[in-house]
């Protein structure tokens, strides 16, 4: 056992850390990790930062060099993600580097890899993920957006919902129905289509936290057959296989820790009933609890990353608790922080009295729905059936 890092790993960590510290503005707080207020300047800044990181090779550090990566191992990729998380940061094109890119890498043709991956790794493009539909939420296989083969083209018709926050995506990563089958999973296919095709339209959906999600509509959209990723009708399985790693996200505990550090600073600086909050025993107990939970999740996340790296030796990942912990802890932590802030907690970004520029409030609002990647209930079914081999209901 070893809970430290190698010299090389520490060096990589410092490089990433120094890069970010020097690039991030002084008045920065939680830029674009889904908690950024809508702000064009901010969006432009984050794209520029992504491009600079792309030059360093850190966007898709695990990919082979020929596709723009650095060929780094799981642990090193984990370190890059952790350092990003330390600043509550994420690349705008998270879909490209963490979700769709890996699918292309695993199931794409050589042409597709050469075409699609390097721009992602260089931080030059933005991709969006279009999976969820009004009737396909936790039941992803229920997808109804159709892709029908027509000569050298596929023709897309249908609707997608709850698409991420990218304003001007270059490509759309789509799971679409290509056959009516039982079970439903067997008739889905993955596509990566240019976002500017005629017939594609979208509109914003305002969310509880002030975030914007988008709805996309496909009206006889024709895309060249080369846009299909992997085998026809294997899309559901391929998506699952390439998604596995999203579940363990080292950025989360690191960004949770940053949030906590900022909140502790707030508690040191803020007096209630004439006394700094940090001196209130109940506040101290709550902060300590948060610190412990974040550490627990950090270890669970690293354990998963390590275990994924050991797959060759030990077989497929046995269980991953990091997502479970993240969801459990985030809810209680955000509530506890809101409780500590009292009346001030309801103030949002832009109010001069808003604690931490409203960041905690946004987190709390976001915590009302921690559903990216499937509901917590689905997560529990997976843990029960796959990790614990508990029986299924007859």
């Amino acid at each position, binding site marked *: 056992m070893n809970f430290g890092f190698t010299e090389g790993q520490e060096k990589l960590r410092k490089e990433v850390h120094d890069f970010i510290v020097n690039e991030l503005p002084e008045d920065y707080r939680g830029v674009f990790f889904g908690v950024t207020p809508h702000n064009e300047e901010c969006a432009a800044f984050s794209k520029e930062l992504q491009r600079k990181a792309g030059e360093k090779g850190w966007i898709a550090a695990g990919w082979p060099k020929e596709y723009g990566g650095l060929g780094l191992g799981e642990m090193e990729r984990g370190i890059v993600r952790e350092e990003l998380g330390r600043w509550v940061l994420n690349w705008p094109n998270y879909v490209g580097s963490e979700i769709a890119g890996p699918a292309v890498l695993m199931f794409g043709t050589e042409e597709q890899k050469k075409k699609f991956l390097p721009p992602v790794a260089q931080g030059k493009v933005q991709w969006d993920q279009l999976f969820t539909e009004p009737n396909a939420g936790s039941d992803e296989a229920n997808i109804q957006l159709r892709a029908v083969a027509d000569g050298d083209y596929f023709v897309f018709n249908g609707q997608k919902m709850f698409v991420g926050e990218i304003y001007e995506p270059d490509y759309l990563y789509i799971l679409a129905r290509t056959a009516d089958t039982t079970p439903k999973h067997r008739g889905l296919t993955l596509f990566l289509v240019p976002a500017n095709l005629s017939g594609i339209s979208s509109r914003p959906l305002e*969310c509880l936290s002030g975030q914007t999600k988008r709805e996309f509509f496909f009206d006889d959209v024709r895309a060249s057959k080369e846009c299909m990723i992997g085998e026809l009708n294997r899309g559901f399985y391929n998506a699952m296989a390439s998604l596995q790693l999203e579940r363990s996200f080292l950025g989360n505990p690191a960004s949770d820790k940053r949030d906590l550090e900022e909140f502790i600073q707030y508690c040191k600086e803020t007096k209630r*009933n004439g006394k700094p909050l940090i001196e209130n025993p109940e506040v101290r107990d709550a902060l300590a609890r948060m610190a412990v939970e974040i550490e627990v999740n950090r270890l669970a996340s690293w354990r998963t990353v390590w275990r994924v790296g050991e797959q060759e030796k030990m077989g497929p990942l046995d269980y991953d608790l990091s997502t479970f912990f993240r969801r459990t802890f985030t809810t209680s932590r955000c509530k506890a922080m809101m409780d500590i802030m009292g009346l001030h907690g309801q103030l949002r970004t832009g109010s001069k009295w808003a604690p931490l520029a409203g960041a905690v409030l946004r987190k709390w*609002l976001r915590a*009302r729905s921690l559903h990216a990647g499937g509901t917590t*209930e689905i997560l529990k079914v997976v843990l029960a059936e796959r990790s614990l081999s508990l029986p299924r209901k007859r």
Partner: protein
Amino acid sequence: MDFALSEEQEMLKKMAREFLERACTESLVREVERGDKGYSPELWRKIAELGWTGMVFPEKYGGTESSLLDMAVLYEEMGRAMFASPHLSTVILCGLLILETGSEQQKAELLPKIAKGDLVLALALTELDPSWDASGVTTRATPNKGAYIISGTKLFVHDAHVADRLLCVTRTRDSAEPADGVTLFLVDARSPGLSYTLLKTMVGDNKQCEVVFDKVRVPAENMVGQLHKGWAPAASAIQRGAVMLCAEMAGAGQRVLELTLDYAKTRVQFDQPIGVHQHVQEHCIQLLASVDSSRWVTYQAAWKLSQDLPGDMEVAMAKAWTNEANEHACWRAHQVFGGVGYTSEIGVLPIYSRRGRAAQSYLGDTAYWRKKVAGGIDGWVLEMPKGKPMGFWQ
């Protein structure tokens, strides 16, 4: 023990339900959220015609002597309908305080106007270091030639920007006992030296203000109650207001429960309604438990106050419990609704969620009221039996 509403209360409830369903539509609620006022003056006019703004006053001031229990019934319906208005500020907090403490002249002048819907009042109580105890009152009122000069800043003052007068809680004397030396004044909202800034909060309605008193001159006859003895009536007002907030949260919770059950029964995923799953059922049961329990602690507190029975403990328990139950209920609902409940444009859950959080922190948060409960516990005396000792425990 009788857990049923009286016939009159049932009628009031039915009438309020029907009226608000018709008049306080989802689109109106959204309009009010976007607007500056925080309420609809037209609807305010209508509820005044229905008698809601005066019913709690004696007949001679234009009311029908409804009890606080009756008002709780009404507030449940207002919470259910997401109805926003300066009713709490005007009628419950200020109006009843004036009725209890004001001079005959003040009552005769103000209460009939309130009853008619012609006067809006706001309670200026909390400050930059907000507190619901007398120790938080630092805004100064200094006697000066038959008048008082008020200076200080009040924060989180509901409805101040639309009020005709402010009921301002001031400090007129320093003393070892913070409650000694607090005095109440009615301040004309257009007095020179008064300025308002709307706070940016997470709720669009129930607007709150920062109110700066910069040497505001108030005639001595505007004092409400006795010099230095203003805290006791203010504390009573906080109690009454807290119980009404509980009723509002309980009513809102009831609606959230209904919406959630409906969704659980009709939302189909994996070819079955999601409500067949025990994970989802658990959320629904917790919701039921939160909402149902909130009603009874609230009604018990309202009943105590209505009967002029000692109710400090019951009020404290009601707000402490209902705050937590409301947070829990909304969170459970979000778990069932998933992404759909997170989208501000689809359905009303996000509105209940945000309003609920604001209500939880207003007029005493959980920690505050739990401290009151602990204070009550200090006085508990352990009764012991009187029979002869038997030595069971040797």
